[in-house]
């Protein structure tokens, strides 16, 4: 019996959330301390899992834990990570940690920073969300995957509706919840169909996904059910044309939630679409990959273009997320080794990058009280570290060599080229557009002369904010300079997927 590290990672946030809710509302600092302690423990544990996987040269599913949950229907609490999910578990730990730092807040009503209104509820709901996200990444049981998936969706509504941007929060929160709920229940019908078909084919009553990989679904069955399952999950991945909820949601959400949302939650969609859609229904994936590739290709170029014309900094990042998540789905749709590795690394890279972007945007908004790009300027003078962080994020976003974006995007385009060179040519236009809007906005926000209105009103960020920025930047540079700390690991995960695709 080995140490149940994955269960601890998953359930710790839930426990902490309940503990925080039990604490008196006035003890704000104690609540924050519990939140930070939990986040640090989870970060360390997920980092340990990642390092173990990397340094021990593991392959396949590791750290396996299995407990019977409902034997009559074959539901088990079945956890394990592979080369695909281990980086995402680490990513969740990082975003959770930095998210707590960013939301720390203070009790001075004149200084707007972090979360001041009801931090107890905020951190509790945020941790429910985090627990759900961990659960999806480590679950090897389809039922439990859904269970955690739904847990990850609903706190979003409250987090956005309560602490979000006053102007759009109600609308955006409801829109987001309905989109995601529709997506997940559509996928759920597909999952139930898979469950019963497996029972018919093999007589095994089980939600075990490793079992389902060899359930012998007929080509006809896969052809019908692949699209509902894949697209149902991919809604959360922000796939075009179901991306509409995502920029609105990002913009309306408070900073830490935007980080979680774009940084981790969208990966949840892409990951689940890959895990359930592609890996359990490989024949269906092969037949429909042209459609997925089209959707993703449109998302990449269209998202970048819309980001270019935005004047609201947060909307710009929101649409750039659509574009970058399009790249992830594009990588998945290639169904070849190169493209999938790219998709795997891009999930991590984009998660860190976009968390950084949203964190910095939040800091700027808290101080300047505006996010409109033309109204900003000269921020670099007063918050140099924010400028540095934003530029590094921008370079990652453009796919500059030496940063994690390059390690991720280059293989994706190579993979696409192998399948369909025309799509690769068209989608690579997005790199140019991305470079254009990133540089344009960096110049305006950070280096243009500061408008008089802002002069003297903007102070530097807190130490906690700086720690968050530095952590995120180091990760992106680290992977860019030493791809070997991530790529070989993702390759083992992709190798497993290629077996499924080839063997079917």
């Amino acid at each position, binding site marked *: 019996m080995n140490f149940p590290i994955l269960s601890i990672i998953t359930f710790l946030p839930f426990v902490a959330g309940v503990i925080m*809710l039990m604490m008196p*509302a006035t003890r704000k600092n104690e609540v924050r301390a519990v939140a930070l302690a939990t986040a640090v423990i989870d970060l360390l544990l997920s980092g340990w899992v990642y390092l173990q996987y990397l340094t021990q040269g593991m392959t396949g599913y590791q750290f396996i834990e299995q407990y*019977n*949950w*409902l*034997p*009559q*229907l074959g539901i088990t609490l079945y956890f394990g990570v592979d080369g695909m999910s281990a980086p995402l578990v680490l990513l969740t730990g990082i975003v959770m940690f930095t998210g707590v730092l960013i939301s720390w807040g203070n009790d001075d009503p004149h200084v707007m920073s972090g979360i001041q209104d*009801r931090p107890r*509820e905020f951190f509790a709901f945020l941790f429910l969300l985090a627990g759900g996200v961990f659960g999806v990444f480590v679950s090897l049981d389809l*039922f439990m995957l*859904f*269970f*955690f998936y*739904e*847990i990850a*969706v*609903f706190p979003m*509504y*409250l987090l956005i*509706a*309560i602490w979000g941007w006053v102007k759009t*929060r*109600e609308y955006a929160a*409801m829109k987001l*919840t*309905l989109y995601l*709920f*529709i997506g997940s*229940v*559509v996928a*759920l*019908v597909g999952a*139930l*169909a898979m*469950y*019963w078909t497996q029972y018919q084919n093999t007589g095994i009553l089980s939600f075990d996904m490793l079992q389902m990989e060899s359930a012998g679904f007929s080509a006809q069955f896969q052809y019908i059910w692949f699209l509902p399952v894949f697209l149902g999950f991919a809604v959360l991945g922000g796939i075009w044309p179901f991306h509409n909820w995502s920029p609105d949601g990002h913009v309306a959400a408070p900073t830490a939630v935007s980080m979680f949302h774009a940084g981790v939650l969208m990966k949840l969609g892409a990951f689940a679409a890959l895990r359930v859609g592609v890996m359990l229904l490989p024949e269906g994936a092969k037949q429909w990959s042209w459609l997925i590739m089209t959707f993703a290709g449109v998302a990449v170029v269209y998202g970048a273009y819309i980001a270019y014309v935005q004047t609201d900094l947060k909307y710009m990042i929101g649409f750039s997320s659509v574009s970058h998540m399009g790249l992830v789905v594009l990588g998945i749709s290639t169904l070849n080794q190169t493209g999938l590795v790219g998709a795997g690394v891009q999930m991590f890279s984009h998660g860190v990058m976009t968390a950084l972007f949203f964190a910095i945007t939040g800091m700027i908004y808290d101080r300047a009280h505006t996010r409109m790009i033309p109204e900003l300027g000269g921020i670099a003078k007063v918050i140099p570290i924010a400028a540095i962080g934003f530029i590094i994020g921008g370079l990652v976003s453009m796919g500059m060599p030496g940063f994690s974006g390059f390690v991720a995007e280059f293989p994706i385009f190579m993979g696409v080229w192998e399948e369909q060179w025309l799509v690769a040519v068209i989608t690579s236009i997005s790199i140019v557009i991305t470079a254009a809007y990133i540089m344009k906005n960096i110049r305006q926000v950070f280096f243009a002369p500061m408008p008089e209105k802002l002069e003297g009103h903007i102070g530097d960020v807190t130490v906690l904010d700086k720690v968050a920025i530095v952590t995120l930047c180091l990760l992106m540079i680290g992977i860019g300079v030493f791809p070997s700390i991530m790529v070989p690991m993702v390759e083992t995960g992709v190798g497993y997927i290629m077996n499924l695709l080839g063997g079917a």
Partner: protein
Amino acid sequence: MFTPQTFASILPEILILVLAILILILEPFWKEDQRRNAGWLTAGGLIAAMIISLLFARPGEPTAVLGGMIRFDWLGFFFKMMFMFAGAATALLLMDHERAGRRGESYVLLLASLIGMNLMAVSSDLVMLYLAIETASIPLYILAGFLLNDERSTEAGFKYLLFGTVASTIMLYGFSLIFGFSGTTDLYALASIFSSGSISPLLAFGVLALIIVGLGFKLAIVPFHFWAPDVYQGSPTPIAGYLSTASKAAGFAVVVRLFFVSLPDFAPTWTLIFAALAAITMTVGNLLALPQTNIKRLLAYSSVAHAGYALIGVVAFSQLGAASVVFYLAAYIATNLLAFGIVMAFNRITGLEDITDYAGLSRRNPFLALMMLAAFLSLAGMPPFGGFVAKVFVFAAGVQANYTWLVIVGIINSIIGVYYYLNVLKYVYLYRMPNEDEDQNPVPLTRPYNIALVILTIGVILVGTVFAPWFGWSAEGAVLLFN
């Protein structure tokens, strides 16, 4: 004739009867301000009765007792436990009801209807079944109209009585036709008589229709739901909660036993009827819930919709189907009682029951708001609350029985549901009280509410996370319907 087993089979009812008599005797000796203690006695007595029954009166092999009037089996027993749990919670919620809580009669009536419901779950004879249904209903007619000086309550009681008697008369007519065709009233003997196929399908359809009208009223499914919103709104809130949970579940207990055991040969007909009813019920219930502004009416329509979801399990007509219905009811009873309990607790302090009045509740009483979150998210079908797992199980049963279209209707409906449940939570968490400071307007809870609501919240979460035992018991009961 009167063996220990016979005694065990009706032990819970005997205990409830003793409890009711005890309250009748004690209550006149209490002073006016002590009479609410009858609620403690009722709740405590019911819990004690549950424990005693669990220890000494658990069913073994299913047997017919009392001359075939009663079937002593696990399915009935599990239903009984659910009803008694609901009864105990209702008694606690009733205690601090301004006008109903200090009257011993209300508890005695509650217990009387509980005896009826318990017998509904185990009746294996048409005559017994009818008597049980009436025993359960008549006290509820009185309880719904309990607040004599309140017009709405009087209207509720009267409406419930009129609809109820008409429906049960129609059902009785159906029963008598069954007896006319088969010459027996024993549910378990009926199956073999009908399987000879001597009855024309048209007649069978007529008989089924008559019975479904009567039971449809109990379940409050569309188109027999008209009474529900008015009655729920008018009757004392805890009684509305009881009507929407235990009474509905008792109806399902009858449906499951009657149709699965006695009428399997007509299954193609009645599954189709129920499938249509389920689809209409879910859709109408949810659509009518959308524009509601009164929270009790919203919950009334939502409970109509929930009967529709549970019917999917009946339509599936399989072991998993039956088990999922029972599981769904277990989750639903805890959830809906919690929702009505919160409405009651809020109404007691503020006297208000519109959805907009809930603005700022999360600041006025954070714990009440959290419990409301649990209740409404469970109703919406979100994990880790009971509603999610329950929905997945009925949907799974539906897909297994090739009723994918019905499951899709159910899914579209649960999306509608998410919208209006979240809408209520929006008031609770997002909006502030207009022109008032929330800190100056707290919503304190008295002890009975604290106990009842916390237990129900824990129940909702337990059903939704550690679902193995509940599902195990449901499944154990369901197996017995098919041998």
